[in-house]
């Protein structure tokens, strides 16, 4: 993010993601939405990577997708409608929060089967490589998904078939209710990429500008070489796995450490320090985000439930 506006834009986008997810938590608390996985604390990874993609690039994501979707420009009104099971949702209420796909935005094949997106990304990469164009595929997955055999299988096939897939591991230290230190001895996933002959890099996932820079390099490399690349963003899941979650199993010191590294606070402090952000501008952004979310809630609540015929409407082509 070389220019100032981009840094401010990134901040505003992260604020929108945060507000969207906090709205969802609130709706759930009032019994108006099913439980959901939030990406609070991980906004920089989503915004930093997605802002480095071109319009023809595609994104595969997982259960923790709100950041990726909103960073890509998804309409929070339609996202909230989806999560509350309404007809105007991106998937007509069939998905709920866990597998929101929006083909019009290039966010495709979202799967809440952990590792599901990794298994599909190679096929999407194959289409990209055989059907022409210079588009690439970005596949977001978690550190937990990297424990599934699909991770290695996917990387390996992408490597030997020269598939233009950018793998982005959002290493948020948690795999539902299990800390990643309990499930793997390796400190991160990039060593596995090296073993398979895939280029890889690690970045501070809470620094949106650093993520953007690393992602820009990765995207450029995949686009030029038509080969896979693994980018690991080190970040932290600040809320629980799935709302509601009291996080009683989380080490308070670790949580406090990462709260101090909240990506929104970090970016705001940087912009203020560099004289790129005034208090007025912050107020303006907060107001804009709040209005957007108020409208989204009103839209979702006004949207009707789908008809029962929707259950079977899209099962077969």
């Amino acid at each position: 993010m070389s220019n100032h506006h981009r840094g401010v834009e990134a901040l505003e986008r992260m604020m929108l993601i945060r507000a969207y997810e906090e709205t969802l938590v609130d709706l759930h608390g009032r019994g108006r939405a099913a439980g959901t996985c939030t990406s609070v604390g991980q906004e920089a990874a989503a915004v930093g990577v997605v802002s480095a993609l071109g319009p023809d690039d595609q994104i595969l994501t997982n259960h923790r997708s709100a950041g990726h979707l909103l960073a890509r420009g998804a309409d929070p009104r339609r996202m909230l409608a989806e999560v509350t099971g309404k007809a105007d949702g991106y998937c007509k209420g069939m998905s709920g929060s866990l597998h929101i796909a929006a083909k019009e935005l290039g966010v495709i094949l979202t799967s809440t089967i952990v590792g599901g997106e990794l298994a599909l990304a190679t096929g999407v990469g194959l289409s990209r490589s055989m059907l022409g164009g210079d588009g690439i595929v970005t596949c977001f997955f978690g550190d937990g998904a990297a424990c599934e055999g699909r991770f290695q299988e996917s990387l390996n096939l992408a490597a030997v078939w020269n598939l233009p897939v950018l793998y982005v591991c959002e290493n948020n230290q948690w795999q539902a209710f299990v800390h990643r230190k309990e499930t793997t001895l390796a400190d991160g996933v990039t060593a596995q990429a090296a073993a398979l002959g895939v280029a890889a890099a690690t970045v501070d996932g809470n620094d949106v500008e650093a993520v953007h820079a690393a992602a820009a390099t990765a995207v450029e490399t995949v686009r030029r070489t038509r080969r896979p690349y693994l980018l690991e963003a080190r970040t932290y899941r600040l809320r629980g796995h799935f709302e509601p979650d009291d996080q009683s199993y989380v080490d308070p010191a670790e949580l406090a450490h990462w709260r101090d590294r909240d990506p929104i606070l970090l970016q705001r402090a940087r912009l203020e320090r560099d004289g790129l952000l005034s208090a007025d501008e912050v107020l303006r952004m907060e107001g804009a985000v709040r209005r957007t979310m108020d409208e989204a809630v009103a839209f979702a609540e006004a949207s009707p439930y789908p008809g029962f015929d929707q259950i079977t409407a899209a099962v077969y082509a």
Partner: protein
Amino acid sequence: MTSMTVNDAISAALAEEMRRDPTVLMFGEGTATKRRDLLDEFGPARVRNTPLAEGILAGTAAGAAATGLRPVVDLLFAPFLCYAMDEIVNSAGKLRAISGGQFSFPMVVMAMTGAGWGVGAQHNHNLEAWFVHAPGLKVVMPSNAADFKGLLKAAIRDDNPVLFFTDIALGYAEGEVPDGELVVPLGKAAVRREGADVTLVSYAKTVNHCLDAAGRLAEQGIEAEVVDLRTLKPLDEDTILASVRKTGRLVVVHEASRLCGVGAEIAALVSEKAFRSLRAPVLRLTGPDAPAPASYPLEQAFVPQAGAIAEAAAGLVRGA
């Protein structure tokens, strides 16, 4: 009797069996985190968190089961079993027979499914019949707290691989559980309500929908008998056939989809062995051939509800 939720009944069964038999152990993604009481009592060797990798979890359970341990593996939600299909079906289900009986697989695979949580088809898929179709496996799907406790204990003691499904809508349902040792044998259905006019056969939460329906039918002067299968394999043919021979009418109800579902098996069984007792066609009320929707009203509509069951049963009785 003690009143407890289904979740508590499951916990009690696990604790009792682990206390009774030191070879019983449990693992899964978050098992040690979520089952803190078991971890505290039995320690980290017998209560383990695992990496996210269902295939290796099921395979590890099978390998351990064949060589002296009695693992209970929690694979969380039924759709995740797809990642473990090979280990459950090809290994645990077959290696006993194809080794000429050299190995057994005393293991339990637990998974949740069913409408009630609004999380969509990759968490909610009643795929229990797939495992009924696979040789070498037993399949259990209880409807109430006492059975959850007694059947889980029996499953852990069984020398075969047992798939133990929990209907997620039942987790917080309270029920009376007999005090003391409670082992409910696998393969025995329960008649939950007696009646002479029509038999309603079901399992898991739709048993409750059938009981509701039976109440409504009684108001119309129709006496429905409700059979709770409890175990889908081995199937308690005798209880089903005895009931149908008495009533002459059968409605099978389940949330899983119709094609090649448990209802199809029961309909075939009854037409083979109780054909002359039938006074009306066998009906099936099931979920549709569609992935479960997340949207709450659609998710509810997906599941056969009491009103529809009562209507179908009344139609059979009046039509006869």
